[in-house]
């Protein structure tokens, strides 16, 4: 009540100015604080990175691009992100479909899995994968119990072992928007396809896919871009031979002691990622689905 009165008391003064629609005051107070925050927290670190990158003797950017570890890591990261994205979107579509059409117990199980993924720390999950994939870890124990294997398994810190963990981390970001699109499907169109004799393939192509395509693309863009910056999971599960760009940057700063090169690589990574995002956003209207 007290607050309402306070607001009411403040009315005559602001009321006169606020009368004009789309008032300047409204915009000033609602839009400028977040924009200022963005300018400060995105602009200043980027400026600092640029300064840092230019502080060395040579051209840190040229040096980065000439470094074969960096170039290799870029290629590896792009490949990793592309494969993880494709797998995540495909599996995520299946997962979302299953949530929509599965029996109640399966629905609960699948939603529970998503909740675990969303609400337990990424560190916890990555540690779980570590324990699973260690040469004599949980997976080995299981296989041995099943009499499928007697020697320790050799998947820890290999690329193949990295993918399931990456997909598990990224999957909720694909499943949730795709599920929303599936739940919004037009029932009459589905019924029409059935009544006119269409089988699963034709129904999927004629009704389901057109309706969820946009969500699949948005999810894919987001997963791809987030995969490019992946750090913890590749660090723990991929090992030194699977270093991503993020890992290389960390190495330049902490091991090689080349802050200028690290900063240059960071700028290249940020610039590349954001550029990919902006282009995809223009092409596919990604943020319109999210915001």
């Amino acid at each position, binding site marked *: 009540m007290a607050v309402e009165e306070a607001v009411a008391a403040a009315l005559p003064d602001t009321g006169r100015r606020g009368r004009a629609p789309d008032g300047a*005051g409204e915009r000033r107070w609602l839009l400028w604080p977040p924009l200022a925050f963005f300018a400060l927290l995105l602009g200043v670190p980027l400026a600092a990175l640029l300064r840092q990158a230019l502080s060395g003797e040579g051209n840190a950017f040229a040096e980065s691009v000439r470094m074969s570890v960096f170039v290799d890591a870029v290629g590896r990261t792009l490949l990793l992100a592309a494969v993880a994205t494709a797998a995540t979107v495909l599996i995520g579509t299946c997962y979302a479909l299953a949530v929509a059409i599965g029996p109640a117990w399966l629905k609960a199980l699948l939603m529970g899995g998503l909740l675990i993924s969303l609400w337990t720390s990424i560190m916890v999950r990555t540690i779980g994968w570590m324990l699973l994939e260690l040469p004599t870890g949980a997976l080995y124990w299981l296989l041995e119990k099943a009499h499928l294997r007697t020697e320790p398994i050799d998947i820890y810190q290999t690329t193949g072992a990295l993918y399931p963990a990456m997909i598990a981390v990224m999957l909720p970001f694909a499943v949730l928007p795709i599920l929303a699109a599936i739940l919004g499907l037009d029932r009459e169109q589905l019924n029409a396809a059935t009544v006119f004799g269409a089988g699963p393939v034709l129904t*999927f192509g004629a009704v389901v896919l057109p309706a969820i395509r946009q969500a699949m693309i948005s999810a894919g863009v987001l997963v791809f871009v987030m995969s490019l910056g992946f750090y913890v999971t590749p660090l723990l599960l991929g090992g030194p031979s699977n270093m991503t760009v993020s890992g290389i940057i960390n190495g330049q700063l902490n091991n090689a002691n080349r802050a200028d090169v690290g900063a240059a690589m960071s700028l290249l990574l940020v610039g590349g990622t954001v550029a990919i995002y902006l282009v995809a956003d223009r092409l596919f209207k990604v943020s319109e689905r999210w915001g």
Partner: protein
Amino acid sequence: MVDSPLRRGIGWWRLPVLGVALLTSLLFYVPFLVVVATSWTETSFIIFPPQGFSPTWYSDVLQDPQWTDAFKVSLRVSAAGTVISVVLGTLGALALTRLRSRTARRWIRTLFIVPMAIPPVAYAVGLYSVNLEVAALGDNLALLILGEALLAMPYVFVMVSSGLSQADPALRPAASTLGASWPLIVWRIDLPMIAGHMLAGAVFAFAVIFDEVVLSVFLAPVGVKTLPLQMLDASQEALSPQLTAASTLVSMLAVLLLGAFSLYSNRRAARARRRARKATTA
């Protein structure tokens, strides 16, 4: 729900789809269960299957200041970061509804989502450079909190925006023709409508910040660790069951809080439904 026309339309695809989903859900459950299982071992190192069953490592973690301090630091950082991201993310979502120009709306929307796309390591290096150059920032958590708030803001923005998009767009002009000023409109019309979404955004932001490890790697002051950082360090040293016991405890806490939150929001939704029904029958 669409499920029955969809189920009919999908036909025999149903089984493979359900099978893939069921197998995929193992990716979520198995690593988590492995972590939980190894935490009750009696051995002094992590081993699977666990040997024996004892709560030793839980009491050990709860008494170890390294872990409890890290937990407290994480709580402080997450709470502060959440407040900042909820306030600014909500302001941004509100501002978006008040922009007329379509281009402006597009750019603002893109801008608010962009932090999701920024690679955390590169961003952390940038903030670290700022910290080096501006001595006044000193050796404290301020920059870490601000950086985390930026990374969490897209989630708040997305959730609040979706809340605002469900609202009746005629309400604001109606209130405005009745002479209400914009702060009054925000306070009495917009905020009550999006309170639930703000809360959901806050929960999400808190979880994101609590979870985030990369910024802490670069920005945590000497001798101070957040919980994920402590976990990262522990996972790279000898694997002590302390690590999985702590992981289990944090996860349980998250599940409890989340359960309480969803119970609360279900109640809220049920209350709103009852009220709506009463209004339509009256």
